[in-house]
């Protein structure tokens, strides 16, 4: 009797890792898949091609196309944050079926995108592993029968949790793949591909996590009425507190990695006590990245000089629809030659990429390993791991070069924005507009499919 935790994949008995094997190729006995061939990272270098590279896959693609032809239904914040909803059995089951239909549609769009990329790009190890993962997740969810009872929903939630866990390492894989394939494809196209992948990922994860949270809350207390709270995903954040927390974290990480370092202080001004509803993990990631960049630049500029760096001025402004953060530092600014590539996942001309590759690929590998190791521990646990949390707590020596583009996607997903103005030789001002998510009649952006 197969346990629930191996619903989708078999664990390799030797290394306990979860090889991304095709659903059909699963065999009850011989589980030597990864050690018979290669380790997790190298399996597609072997002579066994993945199952999706086959003519059968081509002709079966019709199903995918049907799903990709549907448009995703826009999701309102009310649905996501379940403002004022009285939870009932029917509502839970309704929500479950909504997720059951929306997830495959949205995944189908992204898989279709990937199918349109050049062959050479998708054959890259990282991109093809993501493709495999998406395809099998798509099949798993779409084959799930209609949910009619709460027990069905339980099973469904288990499947969702596993999916969330297995998809944790997607971001590093994608970023590494994108960097490695930067010479195979136009960088604008690659950037827009990454953006749509990440946006879609955020929306799917939020949908999934919200449904799981809804189920858990209902099961705990059927009379639970979340009208006063904002739900499991959205938290009431205090603007200044979030910045202080991120500052403390970034500071401690930096201090543990570099000895004897002088880090600029933060000075707050403005509407310091502003409170608003937001997805806490997203905000922590974005603010963390901004502060990390400042600290890194300060390090480079002031370390040699041995003088205390000028403080970073953090201005918080409470506007009708947004909370606006301005981080104003004097850490030397961004060199003008980098500015055109600031928001790109694909970093500029080839020479820069080679240089970055050297720095970045081992760094991202470290993230991947960390995430995959934690995935191994996590199966069987209820709470899915967050890849963002892992990125947020990474060591400052891991310079990934994707902080700003990622922050942009996360900020813009909820209708905010991020802008950077650099004064060469002096410092940088970063403007972060965060939408206040308390307005329940708003819809999440249409293009976040």
């Amino acid at each position, binding site marked *: 009797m197969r346990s629930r935790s191996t619903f989708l994949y078999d664990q390799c008995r030797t290394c306990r890792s979860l090889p991304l094997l095709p659903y059909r190729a699963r065999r009850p006995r011989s589980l030597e898949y990864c050690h018979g061939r290669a380790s997790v990272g190298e399996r597609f270098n072997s002579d066994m091609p993945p199952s999706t590279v086959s003519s059968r896959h081509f002709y079966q693609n019709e199903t995918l196309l049907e799903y990709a032809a549907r448009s995703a239904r826009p999701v309102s914040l009310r649905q996501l944050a379940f403002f004022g909803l009285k939870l009932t059995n029917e509502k839970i089951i309704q929500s479950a079926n909504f997720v059951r239909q929306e997830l495959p549609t949205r995944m189908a769009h992204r898989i279709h995108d990937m199918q349109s990329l050049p062959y050479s790009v998708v054959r890259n190890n990282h991109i093809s592993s993501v493709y495999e993962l998406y395809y099998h997740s798509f099949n798993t969810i779409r084959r799930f029968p209609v949910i009619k009872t709460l027990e069905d929903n339980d099973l469904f939630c288990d499947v969702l949790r596993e999916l969330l866990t297995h998809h944790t390492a997607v971001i590093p894989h994608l970023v590494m793949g994108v960097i490695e394939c930067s010479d195979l494809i136009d960088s604008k196209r690659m950037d827009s591909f990454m953006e749509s992948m990440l946006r879609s990922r955020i929306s799917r994860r939020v949908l999934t996590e919200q449904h799981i949270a809804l189920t858990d809350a209902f099961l705990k207390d059927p009379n639970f009425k979340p009208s006063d709270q904002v739900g499991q995903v959205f938290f009431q954040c205090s603007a200044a507190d979030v910045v202080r927390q991120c500052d403390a974290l970034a500071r401690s990480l930096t201090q543990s990695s570099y000895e004897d370092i002088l880090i600029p202080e933060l000075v707050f001004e403005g509407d310091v006590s502003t409170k608003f509803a937001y997805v806490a993990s997203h905000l922590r990631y974005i603010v963390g990245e901004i502060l990390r960049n400042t600290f890194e630049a300060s390090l480079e500029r002031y370390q040699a000089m041995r003088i205390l760096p000028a403080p970073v001025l953090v*201005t918080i*402004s409470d*506007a*009708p*629809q947004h909370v606006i953060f*301005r981080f104003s530092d004097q850490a030397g600014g961004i060199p003008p030659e980098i500015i055109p590539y600031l928001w790109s996942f694909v970093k500029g001309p080839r020479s820069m990429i080679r240089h970055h590759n050297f720095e970045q690929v081992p760094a991202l590998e470290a993230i991947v390993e960390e995430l995959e190791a934690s995935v191994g521990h996590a199966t069987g646990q209820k709470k899915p791991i967050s890849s963002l949390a892992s990125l947020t707590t990474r060591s400052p020596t891991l310079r990934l070069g994707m902080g700003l583009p990622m922050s942009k996607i996360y900020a813009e997903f909820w209708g905010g924005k991020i802008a950077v103005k650099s004064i060469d*030789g*002096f410092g940088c*001002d970063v*403007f972060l507009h965060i939408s206040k998510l308390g307005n329940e009649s708003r819809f999440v952006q249409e293009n976040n499919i």
Partner: protein
Amino acid sequence: MRLWKRTPTCVDYAVRSPGSIRRLFTCSMVPSKFSLEEPVFTNFDVNEVIGSCRSSFNFQDLIQFGRPPIPNEALIQNARTIREIILTSLSRRTLALRNLPYIMMLNPNISQIYNKYLHSVNMVYDSGAKLETKEDNEMFVQALQIVVETHTNAIPTLAKGFAESQTYISGDTTNRFLDAHLHDRIGTRLLSKHHIALTKQSAPSATPDPRFIGLVDTQLSPAALCHEITWFLSDVCDLQYGMRPCMTIDVGEDVTVAYIPEHLEYILTELLKNSFRATIEHFLRMTPASQYRSKHGAPTGTVPHPVVVTIVRTATGVVIRLRDRGGGIEEENLKRIWGYSESTFEEEERDGFKTLNTPPPSVTGTGGSSMGGLGFGLPLSRAYAEYFGGSIDLETCFGWGTDVYVNIKTPQANNSKT
């Protein structure tokens, strides 16, 4: 009714030599009385002429001869070069005007401008036909002076013409036209005045200030400019609101650059004027941002906050950041501020605020640019900044204030985008 006929001689005018310019334009004056007898000239002819002449110049070209006094040969060579460039620019402007809808050209304001351009082309062409001696240069300089004066107050007229013709032309086309127009206008006026100044400074009786090369001030201090402008604008604000704004320079008090003081002064005047107005009105609870904040119980200060100016010397020029606490700009206005004819002044208040918008000639030295209240301030400032490859960027925090970044490129590495 007489039929409108194409005179046969215009075909002869499709000649590639610059000499055809004069004949091209003398005959196509838009007369003040309506007449259908003018011959038709194709734009092809003008394009041919424009294509064959030099049309771009760098900042380096302005200072290439070194400090005055400048030898006559160099002056004459400069005169020849800029004549070509100016003729090309003016022709291009004329062409652009001719491409406007017919009905617009019948608007007296616009046809007046068109006439001015034709007149200027003729003047420059005629007076500079022979440029070999000092006297030739003198005549050329006189012609340039007339051209400069003719066009000094052309912008308000043009603006009025466009405002009256809004039904015949889209906002986008207007913006594009005016962007190109202002760009060329800045170039021609700069070259003309620079050459006039160089000639004056090289006259035997002149004792030139060693700081200046023509119009270029080699030791221009943005900080000093800011102080002067603040001093002037405070008086105006005092008159208008009963309080004086303040400005502090936190970094870069002693930065000097080589640049054209007129341009930088215009830019800073516009931006400081906006900042001061916003700061004072925000303090007096007259802006939407302040009303939002007072509704939500946010505290306001006891005095209006100072505008903080940061001046930083970069490798390619200078960056000036103006940071105010004027409540910021609303989202819907942000898209429109860089367009033309978008002033946030109310119609009936326009005259009343004119004093705030019109720097007197003594400060600007440009003979009184009365462009205020017409919504031209920001786009024109941007045109000035971008002329040599710089930029003006703006970021706003609604409810708090606005940051403006003026990036000026000075000699070393810049090109005018002509």
